[in-house]
């Protein structure tokens, strides 16, 4: 059998070491400076760390290593799924260490080599993990400068670091490189977090666009994703799936599949799989399995779900309130009331859930396309009844996640089947499995009632959020009397709300919450007869929000006019992952068909210090483009537990022809630490388009997605 490094040798792109076997790791770290992490700072940074993600091998929790050749290797438990942290995180380390970016390598998402991490989601990588990585690099720099001071017999204060070389400030001939300092030694340091981070003014690498490290791998086909890992002798597994959610297994006849030459069938409790070295042949054999299931008891559909949610959602909790709604009602001269709806949305990453598992000497190695390698490791250990140290999860490139690969059942399936067959097993979900087992962004209902006084100020706001959770629901407008009640979150299934799994979807809950709030604010602006930007400015004092609104208006060329102006201009704003976003859009509405075409989008974002401006712009463009899907077309249809959308022929993602001109404006915000970048710009898409549609045709579409039929329906009133 080939060893792991052979399997991946083709994939080692510039500075991204996709995997390193243990022998290589020990060899690398046997000499040089190693900054280790204590687990506590991570806990503090990342909020609660689930018990199942607890570290198994703390002796390998290294943050970064500096070798005698001066090369730096960062070990991070985060994963790369397109968001670009394979580039941004080394920028942070290089900046604080004072080394060229090209001398920094990164190992990601390997549970044997990287510090424990709860997962890559929530726009946390740069915002929350970034400071820890910077601290480790700064700590390393201090250690090295101290060593240089001893070596050069100079005071620390008299030394500077330039490109990995410690130099005397007064005598340039006195210098020593990091490599020379660490050569032949092994130095270990625990991260104390005492080192001083560089100030913005001193940045030479952060804040500048760096070339993406994954570029060459990805344009040549060399980038390896989990499904590309092919240990010799590996079998592809296709797994028997129920026809609907809620259906229960009765029996299965696998004899016809077993009779196919080269096919192996595994039956292990609830897991029935057909295996063959070629995936297509395994798929054909699976079709020969005759299975019987009892029907699902679910009678819900994508149309009846909204009634159902209102009926069964838990009572809810107040997530924000101020003043008295009754007082607000009394001072209101106009009241606007509306119910907003949003359907289920799929993650639909282009790479389906994929994993490859191999068992050797009682130890399971699983390559998985996952956002949560450490929790997955714990789940596999539990499912296989193995000690955690006998499970290793390696995360190659992930072909899109968007929250959907926080759940990684395929990794457990691959591990179970590898254990059952004694062979390496590849599990690559079909698209229909992806749509069936997806943890959808939940359907949601919002009931908002709000009032204006004679001065056209919002005097009360009463919002009941059903199914979307709290994120994005906070009111940043200055409203003296308000209350927000949240009934049911975006994760889990409280009160049997959903007929299938729901979970985190890029900016979970915020897309729906911002759609409802910003649609309603717009409806109030129209009621007040005020330009929607002016109305927002008058009703909020948050200086950061004013600034992003002004920046968006300036780039867009917004001229004030009350809606509907017929121009098809819309605005929406919001706060997510610490970033402030204001988006403006221009749409054209075909009044005959109800079809909406988004012509232009301008998005202004204040995300604090920007690590990689070009990468940040890419994320914003991606957010806006992806957001057009849930805004205009994407809705998972289902009936009686059966997911009706099983592939892209009926579930339509945004395509080239639908993509507008997109302009991004990133505000200079040097006084604020880096904030989230992968999610904020998606939250305003629904509302900005709904508001632009209102401006174009005077009809308020209160349900996402805004299909042509719904737009036409709204126009008829």
């Amino acid at each position, binding site marked *: 059998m080939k060893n792991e490094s052979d399997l991946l040798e083709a994939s080692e792109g510039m500075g991204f070491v996709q995997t390193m076997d243990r022998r290589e790791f020990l060899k690398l770290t046997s000499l040089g400076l190693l900054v280790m992490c204590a687990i506590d700072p991570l806990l503090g940074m990342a909020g609660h760390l689930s018990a199942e993600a607890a570290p198994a091998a703390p002796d390998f929790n290294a943050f970064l290593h500096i070798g005698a050749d001066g090369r730096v290797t960062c070990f991070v438990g985060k994963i790369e799924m397109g968001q670009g942290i394979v580039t941004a995180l080394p920028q942070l380390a290089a900046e604080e260490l004072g080394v060229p970016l090209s001398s920094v390598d990164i190992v990601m998402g390997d549970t044997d080599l990287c510090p424990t991490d709860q997962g890559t989601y929530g726009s946390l990588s740069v915002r929350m993990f970034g400071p820890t990585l910077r601290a480790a690099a700064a700590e390393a720099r201090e250690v090295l400068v101290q060593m240089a001071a001893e070596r050069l017999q100079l005071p620390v204060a008299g030394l500077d670091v330039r490109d990995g070389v410690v130099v005397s400030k007064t005598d340039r001939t006195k210098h020593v490189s990091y490599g020379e300092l660490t050569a032949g030694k092994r130095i270990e340091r625990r991260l104390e977090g005492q080192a001083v981070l560089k100030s913005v003014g001193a940045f030479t690498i952060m804040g500048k666009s760096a070339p993406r490290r994954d570029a060459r791998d990805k344009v040549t086909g060399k980038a390896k994703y989990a499904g590309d890992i092919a240990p010799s002798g590996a079998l592809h597994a296709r797994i028997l799936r129920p026809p609907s959610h809620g259906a229960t297994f009765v029996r299965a006849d696998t004899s016809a599949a077993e009779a196919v030459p080269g096919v192996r069938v595994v039956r292990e409790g609830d897991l029935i799989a057909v295996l063959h070295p070629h995936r297509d042949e395994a798929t054909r054999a699976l079709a020969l399995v005759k299975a019987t299931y009892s029907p699902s008891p679910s009678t819900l559909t994508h149309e009846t779900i909204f009634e159902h949610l209102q009926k069964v959602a838990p009572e809810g909790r107040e997530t924000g309130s101020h003043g008295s709604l009754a007082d607000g009602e009394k001072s209101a001269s106009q009241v606007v009331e509306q119910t907003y709806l949003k359907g289920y949305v799929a993650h639909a990453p282009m790479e389906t859930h994929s994993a490859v598992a191999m068992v050797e000497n009682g130890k399971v190695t699983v390559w998985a396309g996952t956002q949560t390698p450490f929790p997955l490791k714990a789940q596999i250990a539990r499912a296989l009844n193995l000690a955690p140290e006998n499970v290793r999860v390696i995360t190659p490139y992930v072909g899109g996640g968007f929250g959907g690969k926080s759940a990684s059942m395929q990794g457990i399936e691959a591990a179970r089947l590898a254990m059952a067959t004694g062979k390496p097993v590849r599990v690559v979900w079909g*698209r229909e499995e992806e749509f069936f087992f997806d943890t959808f962004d939940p359907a949601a209902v919002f009931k908002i009632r709000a009032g204006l006084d004679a001065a056209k100020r919002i005097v009360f706001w009463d919002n009941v959020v059903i199914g979307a959770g709290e994120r994005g629901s906070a009111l940043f407008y200055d409203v003296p009397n308000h209350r927000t009640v949240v009934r049911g979150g975006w994760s889990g299934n409280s009160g049997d709300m959903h007929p299938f799994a729901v979970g985190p979807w890029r900016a979970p809950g915020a897309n729906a919450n911002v759609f409802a709030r910003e649609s309603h604010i717009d409806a109030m602006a129209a009621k007040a007869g005020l330009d929607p930007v002016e109305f927002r400015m008058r009703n909020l004092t948050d200086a950061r929000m004013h600034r992003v609104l002004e920046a968006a208006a300036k780039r867009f060329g917004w001229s004030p006019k009350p809606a509907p102006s017929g121009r098809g201009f819309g605005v929406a704003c919001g706060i997510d992952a610490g970033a402030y976003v204001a988006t403006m859009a221009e749409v054209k509405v075909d009044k005959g068909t109800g079809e909406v075409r988004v012509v232009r989008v301008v998005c202004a974002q204040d995300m604090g210090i920007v690590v990689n401006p070009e990468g940040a712009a890419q994320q914003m*463009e991606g957010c806006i*483009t992806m957001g057009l899907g849930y805004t205009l077309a994407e809705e998972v249809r289902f009936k009686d537990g059966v997911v009706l959308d099983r592939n892209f022929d009926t579930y339509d993602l945004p395509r080239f022809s639908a993509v507008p001109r997109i302009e991004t404006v990133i505000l200079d915000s040097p006084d604020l630490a880096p904030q989230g970048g992968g999610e904020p710009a998606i939250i305003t898409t629904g509302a900005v388009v709904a508001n632009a549609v209102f401006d174009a045709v005077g009809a308020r579409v209160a349900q996402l997605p805004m299909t042509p039929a719904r737009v036409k329906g709204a126009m008829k009133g």
Partner: protein
Amino acid sequence: MKPISFSLNGVQRKLTLDDTRMLLWVLRDDLGLTGTKFGCGEAVCSACTVLLDNQAVRACVTPMSAVNGKRVVTIEGLAHDERLHPVQEAFVKHLGFQCGYCTSGMIMGAHALLLRNAKPTRAQIIEEMEPHLCRCGAHVRIVQAIESASAAMAGGAS
């Protein structure tokens, strides 16, 4: 089992296999060329796009019988001696990718277009690329990359 012979990235290959099997899985499982990706299995996402006699086809629905005697080019066959093809170079320059999973198919689709029409208009690019799905939303940059590749291949400034 039937003998199938075809040119793969310029090299003549002879295989004996069930010729109803699809090119995608023969490339990936039998020949170890994993640059061509599986995305949908029904020719509705274009992640598996390869060139068959210079035409873009979806490998997931192209049976081996249709490959016999033809020339297949995959993403692995574009760069020569570490030199990227101009379309690949343009995708790097314009960052026409994020997660990268649709990228092989995008590049092969763009390459097929430029072979047929060296100077496509923006509308022609969008029409050709319309069946190609990208979930990350790299579309704007992909179009720029294709325009830039077209200019570079014509010898103009990119």
